[in-house]
């Protein structure tokens, strides 16, 4: 005991004072800006992110291979530092910090919490994924229902469950139930194995529990939990959707679809357009609810139809989400002033260059007074669309007179599906562009979720893309290659014949001579 006292007086702190811990220099330089000098998650960027940067003092980590409530292994920490966490502000550090630096940073991060002084945690044993099949995925869906995953993640897995608006993390900040259709943004990785691990370990610090005890209690089998992971994975595309600059409007002979639920939409390719927080003009918005929009386009030579779908957890305004808005308001007001105190509608803006055939589109953020943009502006309440002129974000003048633009919208289990239809030829070419087959026109998007405190300025924006109206393939495309092939083949034959004749002639003259 005396020995203990002696050592207590000469605590390790004094050692720290004289000899800086390994990893501190790299941590202070690269990590502290978000996670704070003392690891409390209170760095400078804290108020500009939701969820907040991780607070290391609690020793609570989302992405682990260990059981619920246990500490992560060093390998778990290493993986997050190396690869980063998709869907969050945490990047991978492999290229910025050396191997040794990252090792040292792990040791330093662990020193922020009292818990890491005990024995090293061990990863839970997991088997390998059983073979996936359509039946397996169907079974996974059944188990998803049995385990009531939909309570938070929603019937279709879009994070719109009845409990979703009430969710908070261990720091009392609002947290969205994951949209299971965007596996490339899963914090712990998108593979079936990684999803299965999250089910076994839970995501500590969040409302996501561990399902290990459910297997131990024989309520489901281990294989059934794998099936859930396979079902969840099947909701997202196999590869992260590529971002392509040109959206092709499919040419149809049968007239454009009648609404967003029309099955003929299956013929048009879907393009993924990422949207990010509007952090350019005041008030900026660092916590957008919508992360991407899927766009399809079709035209029949006289009309253009656009179908836009995106995950939105609420059909705003929805009283169930008042509590959520209150929390977001509290969390994000420090940035550029208070958020709206009541929920506005959900908004969608589709923006065009006002005149086709111009190389220079207007300012991508809603146009400017010098160069206005043409805008289609849809709101969920009342469910209406207006076409008009944008002279900056939130600066919108509706077109006078009869609108050429029609729309149909439906909200299906956490997804908005909106179709716009307009004649290709504009009635007012000074303000609205005509769409011309075989030509591309600049197009950009704006989305806002009213329940998340978003409005016509605080929302998610995209860069300029282009919409190209397909043309029927001209006959010459098939005729010209045929002709050139014939010509070349003929020419080749001729050359060969000539050479052979000459050869024979010279042989003959040789033998004669």
């Amino acid at each position, binding site marked *: 005991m005396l020995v203990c006292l002696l050592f207590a007086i000469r605590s390790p702190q004094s050692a720290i004072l004289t000899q800086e811990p390994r990893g501190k220099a790299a941590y202070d*330089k690269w990590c502290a*800006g*978000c996670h704070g000098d003392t690891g409390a998650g209170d*760095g*400078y*960027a804290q108020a*500009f992110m939701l969820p907040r940067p991780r607070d290391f003092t609690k020793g609570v980590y989302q992405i682990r291979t260990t059981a619920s409530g246990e500490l992560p292994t060093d390998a778990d920490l290493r993986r997050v530092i190396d690869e980063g966490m998709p869907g*969050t*502000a945490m*990047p991978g550090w492999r*290229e*910025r910090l050396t191997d040794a630096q990252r090792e040292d940073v792990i040791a330093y991060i662990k020193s922020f919490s009292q818990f890491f002084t005990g024995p090293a945690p061990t990863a839970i044993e997991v088997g390998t994924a059983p073979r996936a099949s359509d039946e397996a995925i169907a079974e996974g869906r059944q188990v998803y229902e049995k385990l009531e995953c939909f309570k938070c993640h929603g019937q279709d897995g879009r994070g719109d469950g009845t409990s979703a608006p009430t969710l908070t993390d261990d720091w009392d900040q609002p947290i969205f139930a994951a949209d299971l259709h965007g596996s490339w943004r899963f914090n712990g990785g998108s593979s079936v194995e990684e999803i299965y691990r999250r089910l076994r370990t839970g995501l500590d610090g969040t409302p996501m529990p561990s399902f290990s005890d459910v297997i131990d209690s024989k309520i489901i089998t281990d294989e059934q939990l794998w099936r859930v992971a396979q079902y969840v994975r099947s909701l997202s595309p196999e590869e992260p959707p590529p*971002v392509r*600059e*040109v959206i092709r409007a499919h040419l149809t002979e049968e007239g454009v679809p009648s609404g967003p639920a029309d099955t003929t939409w299956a013929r048009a390719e879907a393009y993924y357009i*990422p*949207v*990010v*927080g509007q*952090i*350019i*003009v*005041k008030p900026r918005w*660092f916590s957008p609810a919508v992360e991407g929009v899927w766009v399809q386009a079709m035209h029949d030579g006289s009309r253009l139809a656009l179908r836009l779908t995106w995950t939105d957890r609420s059909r705003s305004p929805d009283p169930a989400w008042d509590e959520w808005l209150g929390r977001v308001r509290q969390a994000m007001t420090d940035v550029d002033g208070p958020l709206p105190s009541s929920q506005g509608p959900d908004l969608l803006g589709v923006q065009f260059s006002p005149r086709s055939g*111009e*190389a*220079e*589109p207007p*300012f*991508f*953020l809603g146009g400017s007074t010098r*160069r206005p943009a043409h805008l289609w502006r849809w709101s969920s309440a009342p469910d209406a669309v207006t076409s008009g002129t944008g002279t900056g974000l939130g600066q919108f003048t509706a077109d006078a007179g009869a609108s050429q633009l029609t729309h149909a919208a439906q909200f299906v289990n956490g997804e908005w599906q909106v179709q716009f239809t307009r004649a290709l030829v504009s009635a007012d070419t000074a303000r609205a562009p005509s769409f011309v087959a*075989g030509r*591309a*026109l*600049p197009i950009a998007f704006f989305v806002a979720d009213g329940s998340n405190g978003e409005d016509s300025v605080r929302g998610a*924006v*995209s*860069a*300029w*893309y*282009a919409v*190209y109206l397909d*043309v029927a*393939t001209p006959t*010459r*495309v098939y005729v*010209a*290659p*045929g002709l*050139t*092939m*014939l010509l*070349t*083949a003929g020419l*080749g*034959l001729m050359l*060969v014949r000539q*050479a*052979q004749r000459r050869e024979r002639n010279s042989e003959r003259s040789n033998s004669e001579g």
Partner: protein
Amino acid sequence: MSRVGAWVRHPFWQAVLLLILAYLLFKFGIALLPPLLGMHSAPVPTSVVVQYMLIALVGVLIHVSSDETRWRRFKEPIHDTMVDADKRWVRLAVLILVPLLIGWVTYDQTRPKVEAPITLRSIHPAPPSQITFRGKTIQLTGLENPLRHRGSLTEHIETGKRIYYQNCLACHGDRLDGQGHFAHGFSPTPLSFADQGTIAQLTESFVFWRVAKGGPGLPREGAPWSSAMPVWEDYLTEDEIWAVIIYLYEQSGWKPRTWEESTGGGEH
């Protein structure tokens, strides 16, 4: 072995080999050079590759035809393929493959192509000699970062760090590589300060101008309609911008270009 040696010494196969090597060099080799100097690289456009290949072909033809014997030997395999009875199958293959290739190229040329509208943009637009910052005229030419001669550098770095993490991080990223968590939503993508080609080549006054005036403050050739860079004079004071510039150089490890270098170098 000797067979291979005979092939390599044959002018026809030499020419073929040379052209293949040239193609590989143009298509892939050139793109590997900039990273060696720490610069970003991009694939060489097909049109440029085609041009270079034509030049290479002309060069090769001039070389083989400059010597009578060489020219004759060069033509031998071509001639043999056309007339020899035992090369019948090769002849047939060439007669089928070449027209097919030509047909495909024609198809590729005539089919309707989907292209995004072209937007022009200059990477380093010329700065104005003076700007108006919140109503105050600031002479940019010859301007140095005033904070480097005032107050404590450590404090300026800390102020700059706070401003960077609260305002710049979402796009330019905490690794300073232009890959913040919102960067993927913008086009052009946010600048990487880690690159040798960005702030390392600029004076602090140029950076001040770009920060203060943002995308909308770019001159016409800079394509103001697509840069997402905000107009920071709406958010930050003059000193705050200078502080964040100090932080950028400190954190990235680059040195700002000085006015002596700029005028002395003369070529910019």
